[in-house]
């Protein structure tokens, strides 16, 4: 039990530490990498809590997602390397206050709530994966299918939004040049 608490705490501290670095560094590439390490530490927390499938899924998904995010950062930022020392923040005091209040309220609830009896043993990894598969293709199939359709819709919507609008003026210019 103490070993599990130790590893959950260590990976939790790593997730928090890298989470802070995301908004402390002026280099956007470092920010994306710090977020990747933070999310990986969260995945390791899942592994320490004996949730193997979700832990591996989290690490694999976030590795891909944050790599794409780093590319977008370099594409879109005015100062991706942070060499210019630009300040890209606003309403700092209000944001710090809101963050502290959000975390504080959640921590108070965590300590004050009566969570009831805590289970010591978790099902083994193979049993968990099998049971989750049965859940996905059984009782929760509608939710699972809805999640799939939502991702498909988001992909189509994102592509539609990103495609440049072809105006009639642009088309006329194109025809003139041809």
């Amino acid at each position, binding site marked *: *039990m103490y070993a599990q*608490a130790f590893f959950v*705490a260590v990976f*939790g501290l790593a*997730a*928090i530490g890298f*989470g802070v670095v*995301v*908004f402390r560094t002026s280099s*956007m590439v470092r920010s*994306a990498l710090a*977020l990747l390490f*933070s999310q990986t530490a*969260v995945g390791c*927390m899942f592994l320490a*809590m*004996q*949730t193997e499938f*979700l832990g591996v*899924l*989290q690490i694999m*998904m976030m590795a891909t997602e944050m790599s*794409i*995010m780093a590319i*977008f950062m370099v*594409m*879109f930022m005015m100062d991706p390397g942070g060499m210019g020392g630009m300040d*890209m*923040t*606003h309403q*700092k005091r209000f*944001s*710090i206050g*809101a*963050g*502290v209040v*959000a*975390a504080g309220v*959640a*921590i108070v609830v*965590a300590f004050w709530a009566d*969570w*009831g009896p805590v*289970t010591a*043993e*978790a*099902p083994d990894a193979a049993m*968990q994966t099998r*049971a*989750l598969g049965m*859940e996905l293709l059984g009782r*929760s199939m509608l939710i*699972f299918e809805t*999640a799939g359709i939502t*991702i498909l819709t*988001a992909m189509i919507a*994102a592509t539609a*939004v*990103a495609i*440049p609008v072809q105006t009639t003026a642009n088309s006329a210019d194109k025809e003139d040049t041809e």
Partner: protein
Amino acid sequence: MTLVLIVALVTGAILCGIGVYGALSQTNLVMIMMGVELILAGALVNLVAFWRFLHPESYSGQMFVLVVMTVMAVEMAVGFGVAIARFRAKGSVEMEEAGDLKG
């Protein structure tokens, strides 16, 4: 065992707080999305801890985790779509310069 649950819940709470700070304080759209990702990571930690320590017999808890991961992916896809459209139109994804998006 309650100790591990509390450690996980406190970690989730602090991650959520850092995410709230990031989402409110950053002026760049991609950085704001990073803040939202951290908020959702905090929610994920809480959901996994609740499933593992309170209801390991019910797999609806793990189902919730998959739904939150879906929300993360959807947020990234739509956010980058909007970022590309905004960058094409105005040459910047700075939210300080996006006052014209107000209704």
